[in-house]
């Protein structure tokens, strides 16, 4: 009798503890949390914002510098089998391993940033970065004197190609003869390589630098050579080039992480592909620096309102590709499917997308 009572009490205690125990959340980062770029934006908008929003209801851990591909599988499995119920994988190259781990751990929710595969326990999330990129293109087009703009880019994935295209459309909207010159680094985060790539573009005559990289190395390179720079990811990049920095298209991931975690806490989470734009606040244009003339600022602000209100769409025809072929006829807006698999450059880009 006594034993049964003790057993019941123990069971009850376990039940209460299990109920009251916080949701364990894990983040996997591709770079260091102080990179002043991509990873920091996820850390600020994820780890910090979730702690602030949910306090004791969540318990968060993170792991930095996890290489993309095979090495990430062990990390994902460790998290999933150690009681973490919600795992945010914050780089494209984890997708294959996330799908593998998700199959083994059907009770764990995985959220995969910038990927494209879904499963019942795998969601995807990303933002329409092409919107602020278009706005930064307007500024670059207005600021260039040589008519040549450099763009340091990581991998020729649709995400990066789309950004380059949106940027170029912005450039050409104010400066129809300017060209955007692309160099691939084949790494999201490799400051020395990013810097070398930027310097080579500047030496080739580019007087505004833009980038799809996680470190401010290209901004630093622009500062050292006395040309303008547009950063990415985080407004912190301005610190690395006070005389070069114009603005950055930036992420505010808390716009996604906080509601998403809340859904998991409330038990209303469903697998979906989240892909929102400036209206939701997940993507923004950082405040423009004092180097940007007032007239340009006014234009950019006006276009921003047009995008947010939905009156203007970046990928609305007529849009021609590099070879002058009409890809999107006048009045047509590119579909999300076409945007998500974009593998061609618009007219005005100088560079090649490697083919298989």
């Amino acid at each position, binding site marked *: 009798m006594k034993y049964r009572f003790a057993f019941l009490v123990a069971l009850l205690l376990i039940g209460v503890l299990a109920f009251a125990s916080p949701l364990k959340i894990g983040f996997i980062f591709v770079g260091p949390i102080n990179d002043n770029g991509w990873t920091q934006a996820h850390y600020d908008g994820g780890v910090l914002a979730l702690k602030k929003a949910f306090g004791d209801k969540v318990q968060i851990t993170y792991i930095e510098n996890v290489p993309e591909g095979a090495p990430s599988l062990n990390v994902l499995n460790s998290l999933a089998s150690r009681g973490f119920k919600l795992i945010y994988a914050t780089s494209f190259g984890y997708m294959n391993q996330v799908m593998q781990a998700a199959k083994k751990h059907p009770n764990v929710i995985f959220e995969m940033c910038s990927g494209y595969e879904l499963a019942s326990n795998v969601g995807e999330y990303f933002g329409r970065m092409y919107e602020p990129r278009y706005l930064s293109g307007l500024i670059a087009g207005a600021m260039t004197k040589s008519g040549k703009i450099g763009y340091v880019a990581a991998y020729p*994935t649709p995400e990066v190609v789309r950004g380059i295209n949106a940027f170029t459309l912005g450039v050409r909207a104010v400066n129809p003869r300017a060209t955007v010159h692309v160099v691939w680094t084949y790494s999201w985060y490799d400051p020395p390589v990013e810097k070398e790539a930027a310097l080579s573009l500047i030496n080739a005559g580019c007087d505004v630098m833009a980038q799809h990289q996680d470190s401010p190395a290209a901004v630093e390179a622009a500062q050292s050579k006395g040309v303008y720079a547009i950063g990415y990811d985080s407004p912190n990049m301005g610190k690395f080039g006070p005389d070069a920095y114009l603005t950055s298209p930036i992420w505010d991931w808390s716009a996604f992480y906080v509601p998403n975690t809340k859904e998991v806490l409330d038990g209303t989470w469903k697998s979906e592909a989240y892909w929102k734009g400036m209206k939701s606040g997940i993507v923004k244009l950082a405040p423009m620096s004092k180097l940007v003339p007032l007239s340009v600022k006014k234009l950019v602000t006006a276009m921003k309102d047009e995008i947010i209100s939905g009156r203007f769409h970046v990928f609305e025809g007529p849009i021609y590709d590099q070879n002058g072929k009409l890809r999107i006829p006048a009045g047509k807006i590119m579909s999300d499917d076409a945007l998500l698999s974009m593998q061609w450059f618009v007219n005005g880009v100088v560079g090649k997308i490697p083919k298989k």
Partner: protein
Amino acid sequence: MRLKIEKRHENASTFSVLLMSILSVVVSLVILGFIILSLGKNPIEAYIQLVSWPLGTIAGLTQTLISMMPLLFTSLGLVIAFKMKLWNIGAEGQFYMGAFGATWGALFLFNHISNPWIMLPLLALLGAGIGAGWGALAGVMKAQLGVNEILSTLMLNYVAIYWVNYLVYGPWKGAGSYNFPITATFPKSAILPQYTANGINLGIFLAIATSFFVYYLLRWTRFGFEIDIAGDNPKAAEYAGVNVKKMVIIVMIVSGALSGLGGMMQMSGVLFRLQPNFSPGYGYTAIIIALLARLNPFVTVAVAFLFGGLIVGTQQIQLFLQIPFSLVNAFQGLLLFSFVAGEALLHYKLRWVRA
């Protein structure tokens, strides 16, 4: 008073060798503790994380065994080469070439074969064969031209890594990879049998079985005997009628074949798609494992298992104490360093002498 280094005359006993190995691990753990302390974290907590998960839970043990598999194949390959005092630093490259062979076979050469019992042996042969060829390159250069094998194998690693990178960034980029460097997934028939949902696969057992094969080869065959004497004294071996040049090439072939087989098993057993950086330096860690195991194939299994646990354990430290990844490499460096220092102490002794 000054310190004098003297050679020991007697051979080190098994007991002192064991003691030295344990001591070198302990010493590196203590130094690691100080590094963790300097980062403002609790080293005791770190030791607990390091051991409790990878060795104390089923899920952790599974991860440890999976991490052990590529380490075991590569270090067994090195044991054979090191026995002959052939310093093959190229296990990493041979591992890459094995993975290349497996991917070539699975996706392009034999992709129409749907029976795994035909496919898998073909892939194993191809992976081991290309790994063997990669080893043979260094072996032939050493035997015919006297090229130092440390340099040639080390440099061939880079060639292998860049060759795989070229393929994955270029012609082998898979459909549906959206221009990201990764190949297509292996067909079902090219995947090793998986016994648990957590990924215990046939490769792990084959790796352990390989240790018996290597033991047999070294201990009970004429080939193993010749390796032994050619390693101890090549001149004497020549007198005894051993063709040392031929032995150099054959040993490099066998050594490369085992690492290449490891690359194939890793692809077919764990990864299923080739990607750049798919190895976090298994072939280099294997050097430490083979040396720590003192070139005994069975001890190699134990040491590779512990290093598998180390990989998994240091990830736990990273996850729960937020300690940087480079600490894993620092710890392995410390281990090798204290092992080499201990090795010196086995053969030499320090003595104070009056000036």
